[in-house]
């Protein structure tokens, strides 16, 4: 297996997940030995079907696993060289790793500005108002919304969730399905902004997605996860040109299996190595 850190930037790995296993309620094993490296300043994407364990991976990074009665039983996770697999969510946010949860999870009965100020909860400096303006420069349409955040459209809520993450001045942001429930046009816009933030702020991103097309276009490196294991990883080009990825995640691919019926039976037999 090739390693993301070797391919992109061998000097600095911001987040390193080393062979972790995660068990819910002491009996349900979800992750079976997952290893992921996220190099500094990159966008790394984690792709996979429903139930593969993508969100669980993110929650074990951000310390939210404990809120769902899950536990990392094996392996370790380090962020900036420090072990974080036993830290609680508040410590992890303070250390500069911020998770944008699936489904955006903005506080609906607060205004946009109040939500943004919440993002800066772990900070104690006095530059919060400047940062609110900075977020508005990335998402100008949020500035016009003065009502409750619950009345924002889905795309605006996603933008607010990303803006709220920026308010914490994180070194790394984990995004859980930013494209969920958005129209293709909005998905394009949101991914454009994610790339822009990565470029301009140098914030490392780990992007969990089902929308493989957009995610692979934005990412420098990708991992593919199925049934709690990483089954394939590689640079954007490697994955975009991989026949299996093309067939299962991007659509198209092998010319002979045009019929969906054939494709299905083929897929059932197909096992990743």
């Amino acid at each position, binding site marked *: 297996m090739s390693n993301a850190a070797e391919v992109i930037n061998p000097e600095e790995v911001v987040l390193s997940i080393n062979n972790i296993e995660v068990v819910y309620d002491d009996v349900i094993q979800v992750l079976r030995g997952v290893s992921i490296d996220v190099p500094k300043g990159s966008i790394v994407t984690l792709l996979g079907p429903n139930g593969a364990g993508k969100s669980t991976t993110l929650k074990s990074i*951000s*310390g*939210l696993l404990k*809120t769902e009665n899950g536990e990392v039983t094996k392996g370790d996770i380090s962020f900036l060289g420090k072990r974080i697999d036993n830290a*609680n*969510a*508040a410590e*992890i*946010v*303070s250390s500069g790793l*911020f*998770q944008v*949860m699936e489904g955006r*999870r*903005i*506080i*609906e*009965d*607060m205004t946009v500005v*109040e939500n943004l*100020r*919440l*993002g*800066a*909860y*772990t900070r104690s400096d006095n530059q919060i108002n400047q940062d609110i303006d900075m977020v508005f420069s990335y998402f100008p349409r949020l500035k016009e919304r003065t009502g*409750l955040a*619950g*009345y*924002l*459209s*889905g795309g605006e809520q996603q933008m607010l969730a990303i803006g*709220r993450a920026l308010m*914490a001045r994180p070194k790394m942001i984990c995004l859980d399905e930013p494209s969920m429930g958005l129209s293709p046009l909005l998905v394009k816009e949101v991914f454009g902004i994610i790339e822009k933030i990565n470029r301009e702020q140098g914030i490392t991103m780990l992007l969990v997605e089902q929308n493989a097309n957009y995610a692979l276009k934005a990412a420098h490196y990708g991992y593919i996860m199925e049934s709690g294991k990483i089954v394939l990883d590689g640079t954007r080009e490697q994955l975009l040109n991989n026949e299996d990825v093309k067939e299962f995640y991007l659509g198209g691919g092998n010319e002979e299996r045009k019929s969906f019926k054939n494709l299905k039976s083929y897929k059932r037999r197909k096992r990743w190595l």
Partner: protein
Amino acid sequence: MNTDLLLQLITNGLIVGLLYGVVGMCFVLVYKSTQIVNFAQGEFLLLGAWVCWAFLVYMQIPFFLGFIFTMIFMAIFGVLLQLIVLRPMIGEPIISVIMVTIGLSIFFQALTKWIFGVAPQSYPKVFEADSVNILGMSIEPAYLMSMVIAVLIMIGFYLFFKHSKHGLAMRATAFDQQAAQSLGISVKQVFAMSWGIAATVSATAGVVMGMVNGVSDSLSVMGIKVFPAVILGGLDSIVGAIVGGLTIGVLENLAEFFDSQFLHIGNMYDIAPFYVLLIILWFKPYGLFGTKDIERI
């Protein structure tokens, strides 16, 4: 009809209503941020009033200093109560937690009786004048002070929840605990803070009531009286608690007035709020301001 008496009773109602509002706010604060229905709310008043009384009478401390010491004591008390008794209950069934708060209520009533005795005690005189005249109505200075304090507390609550980062964190926790944790908010800290604030602010109301009526067991009745107020306002609305408190305060005095003038049933003062409670639960179970979730279309 005795207009003077009516006006006086309405004024009293508004003053007491403000205090109901303050205690109701504490109740709502605990309910919103920790999902606990606190049946020991009235005992916070009782305990606060007794502690302040002890500072003034046993230790001979000047009133305002004793008042501040009481606040500090009750803040620590509230936080410790959450840490020791209620934190281990997180994740337990709601009925168990309610039983614990009922238990706490009985425990603290017994404790105060054991320490301070069963006889009502009165506060040392704080104000020179027995009553001040405002627009022809005589109002006790303590009541006047209670009005000022209640309004200050309400403004304080508004500023805290609107502008301070801890207030925002409490609102976020009330709305979505997991999302709050993902923002780096410590939910445990928020829980402890809400109990600390509730104990402190309720104790303020307790001291003020104690100054007017003397300190006795009857103070803890406020904890029950506050139910009609918060349910009228909507169990999870702070504004609702204030409106509900004022309404109940005026209403019980009006009931008293009509009873004493026309009906002569007796005891309407204590009973009327609970008729209101019953009627609200019939027709508007979420109260006047109980938030309905925003549905995005």
